[in-house]
């Protein structure tokens, strides 16, 4: 937390803004102390003087030094602005939290009132309040404060509603914690950051609004003076002494800029605004590799030494570390592993979807003999577009919600295969029928939200079938679906494979699904393949302790109910701190000194590859659950 805040001043903009803000605040504290007397010295012999060595910004109509007065006015300007912000924040918080505390009906009333108030322009409200409360500093503070309150209330309301919907608030309610206590313990601490940031930004705005009101004569009245008042006085003499107006103007500008930029950079740093930016990495040109080994002709996908590097908090991390595999025509290969093991990134790398923030390196990465590391050209896009199909986990987000399903499918054909729109639309309907969507003709004219989850996933597969794919890459295609729908999607994938000899790479966390669908299973751990074996051997002949634990940990319909389930203690290794030896050693019951020091290579046996120094050794008796105590 502290590191995130201190990170704000590490950017040049953040540092400038912070220095500016601190300077303004320091001036507000020290200004009147240092120059308070100097600012009030009346010198009738030297009125409306031009800037000189004695008076850097000249003098006003009573001969007082304008620069001193600008410096002294900082306190009143800043204090009034902060007071106004305080009013806005307090009133905003009260209104914003009211719907959470007050219950449904009253809450709705408050929200409606706030929504109406938000619709009024702030300055208009300020002018209105200025008339109500009378002309003067008090009226202006109340006016600007109350004018800022609706926006704050709205923000608070939205943030509170967001946190209130989270399960930990529900859990606290179930535990019998009162609403007010929930508000102070759970809700407010979790929305404090964006509120503080917005308060800082509105301090800048309040400062500007104050200068505006005072300049219009509605704010501070003489003999008090703030920057707006000085501007008002100076503007009359602008042809005599431009500095008299420019000096307070510059002060307003700098202070407003300081607060605004500081708030913005904090927001950026905390990920409230545009989110933390990641420096893009240069895509290094791949070293062309001489094709010494002849690739067997039935290989669809050939991946060697695949590495994916992405920027992390402390320098680049490598979630995929040297993955080598081939997929043959018509073969179904499953990739299983825990979340964060690099299975999805592997899929994205072979489909060229890693994006600009990550870097993909491989000594070979070929689809049907075409080098996927080659620069992005229309030809390569054409090959990817027609011979590769990708199915994502969440069918809700993989379609554009604003366009008809048929149109989105047809786009593939018009774009990559040069079909006419008419022919493409017909093909789309045909493909939707092929993925067993009933009444495909009507369905093609519907929008994605009109499809059920399973139907959307089938339409996504249908989109892949617009070309003549040789490979389908499916990343957790059924995880978001119900079991009966999952079965339909898996059946469909199996039927497509059987019909056209299409290869399938199925990524899943569910060992049962992979065992059911795939011919071969690759088990990934910490960015490497630790075992690659025929799916039929998974239950009985797995040799890596991780694979065996993974299989044993999942109950199926025949699991022995009298035994505790196998567990894997500890947690997966984060890509940022992969140990020098075997990444699984810390959780492995067979690990010894060699495992911790040396990373075992993947053996060369093409039928059953395994990366373990103790492959196939008997595992010690299952640890009883009572002995297992974990610490984070």
């Amino acid at each position, binding site marked *: 937390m502290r590191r995130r805040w201190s990170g704000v001043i590490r950017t040049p903009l953040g540092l400038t803004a912070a220095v500016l803000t601190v300077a303004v605040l320091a001036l507000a504290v020290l200004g009147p102390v240092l120059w308070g007397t100097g600012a009030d010295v009346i010198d009738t012999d030297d009125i409306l003087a031009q800037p000189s060595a004695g008076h850097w910004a000249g003098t006003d109509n009573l001969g007082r030094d304008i620069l001193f007065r600008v410096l002294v006015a900082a306190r009143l300007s800043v204090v009034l602005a902060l007071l106004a912000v305080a009013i806005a924040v307090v009133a905003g918080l009260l209104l914003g939290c009211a719907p959470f505390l007050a219950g449904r009906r009253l809450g709705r009333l408050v929200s409606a009132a706030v929504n109406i108030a938000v619709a009024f322009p702030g300055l208009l409200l300020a002018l209105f309040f200025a008339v109500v409360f009378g002309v003067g500093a008090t009226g202006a503070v109340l006016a600007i404060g109350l004018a800022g309150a609706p926006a704050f209330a709205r923000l608070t309301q939205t943030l509170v509603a967001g946190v209130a919907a989270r399960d930990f608030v529900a859990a*606290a309610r179930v535990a019998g914690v009162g609403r007010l206590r929930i508000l102070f313990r759970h809700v407010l601490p979790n929305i404090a950051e964006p509120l503080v940031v917005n308060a800082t930004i509105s301090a800048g705005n309040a400062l500007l609004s104050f200068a505006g009101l005072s300049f219009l004569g509605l704010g501070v009245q003489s003999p008090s003076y703030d920057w707006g008042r000085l501007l008002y006085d100076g503007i009359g003499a602008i042809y005599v002494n431009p500095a008299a107006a420019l000096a307070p103007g510059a002060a307003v500008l700098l202070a407003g800029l300081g607060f605004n930029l500081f708030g913005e950079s904090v927001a950026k740093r905390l990920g409230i605004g545009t989110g933390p930016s990641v420096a893009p990495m240069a895509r290094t040109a791949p070293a062309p590799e001489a094709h010494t080994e002849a690739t067997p002709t039935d290989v669809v996908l050939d991946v060697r030494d695949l590495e994916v590097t992405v920027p992390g908090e402390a320098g680049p991390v490598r979630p995929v570390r040297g993955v080598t595999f081939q997929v043959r025509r018509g073969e179904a290969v499953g990739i299983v592993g825990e979340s964060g093991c690099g299975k999805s990134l592997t899929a994205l790398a072979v489909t060229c979807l890693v994006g600009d923030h990550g870097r993909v390196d491989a000594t070979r990465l070929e689809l049907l003999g075409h080098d996927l590391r080659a620069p992005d050209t229309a030809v390569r896009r054409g090959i990817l577009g027609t011979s590769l199909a990708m199915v994502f986990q969440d069918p809700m987000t993989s379609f554009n919600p604003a366009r008809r399903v048929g149109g989105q499918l047809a786009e593939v054909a018009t774009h990559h295969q040069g079909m006419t729109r008419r022919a493409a639309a017909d093909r789309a309907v045909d493909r939707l029928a092929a993925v067993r969507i009933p009444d495909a003709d009507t369905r093609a004219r519907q929008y994605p939200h009109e499809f059920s989850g399973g139907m959307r996933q089938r339409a996504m597969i249908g989109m892949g079938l617009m070309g003549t794919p040789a490979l389908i890459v499916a990343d957790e295609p059924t995880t978001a679906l119900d079991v009966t729908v999952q079965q339909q999607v898996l059946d469909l994938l199996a039927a497509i494979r059987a019909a056209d000899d299409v290869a399938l790479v199925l990524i899943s966390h569910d060992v049962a699904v992979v065992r*059911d669908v795939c*011919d071969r299973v690759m088990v990934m751990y910490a960015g490497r393949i630790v075992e690659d074996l025929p*799916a039929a051997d998974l239950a009985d002949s797995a040799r890596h302790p991780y694979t065996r634990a993974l299989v044993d940990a999942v*109950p199926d319909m025949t699991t022995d109910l009298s035994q*505790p389930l196998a567990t894997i203690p500890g947690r997966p290794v984060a890509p940022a701190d992969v140990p020098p030896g075997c990444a699984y050693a810390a959780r492995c019951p067979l690990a010894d000194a060699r495992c911790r020091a040396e990373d075992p290579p993947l053996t060369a046996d093409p039928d059953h590859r395994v990366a373990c120094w103790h492959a196939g050794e008997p595992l010690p008796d299952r640890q009883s659950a009572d002995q297992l105590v974990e610490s984070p």
Partner: protein
Amino acid sequence: MSELSFVDVTVRYGRTTAVDGVSLDVPAGEVVGLVGESGSGKSTLARAAVGLVPLAGGRITLGSEPVPTWGRHRPLQMVFQDPYSSLDPRMTVGESVAEAMPPGRSRATRRAEVARLLELVHLDPASAGALPSRLSGGQRQRVALARALAANPTVIIADEITSALDVSIQGAVLNLVRELRRELGLSILFISHNLAVVRYVASHVAVMRGGRIVEHGPAARVLTDPSHDYTRELLAAVPGRTTRRSQP
């Protein structure tokens, strides 16, 4: 020991009826598995029981008394699906667990109780000072269980508590659920869409569809000899029972 009973419970969201006249008993000291697909009303039933959703009809009782939905004594507790959302990211593990304890205990008693509960769910008591961000999903879910236990409940509702977890961690949480029932005599309503998981922990199974319970009975009977077509359909869909591999 009290038992949790749903009697003709109906819940409506606007015009949609999410739960439609459900009657279900969770006998004392038993684990009842509630299965069904998304949208079948399982979670709504759970949220209605703990008072997070108002009832449109029927009643929910705990040992013949209505379930208390106000005040600090809450003998019915709930564990949520997503352990990343169910723990306040700004509260330490110890604070989260202690919050659910009945009030009026000294600080030292609370601390000792937190340590006892964390040990009960197989977490190092020293992790009481840690923030949830330092814990894995499985560890978080065990903290959530410890928090539910802190309220000294007689019945716990577990709503899909393993579906957000990796399979390697799911086993540890399921073992814990069985252990808690065995050692503390807790009654548990265990909601899941995964039949294999329900089979492993539950003694009774209820199958829900479209807001209604279509089949209910001892787990061994429902999962081996289902009487309703929908249950058969669900059983047939469990992965690993068929094979779609290429023919050699």
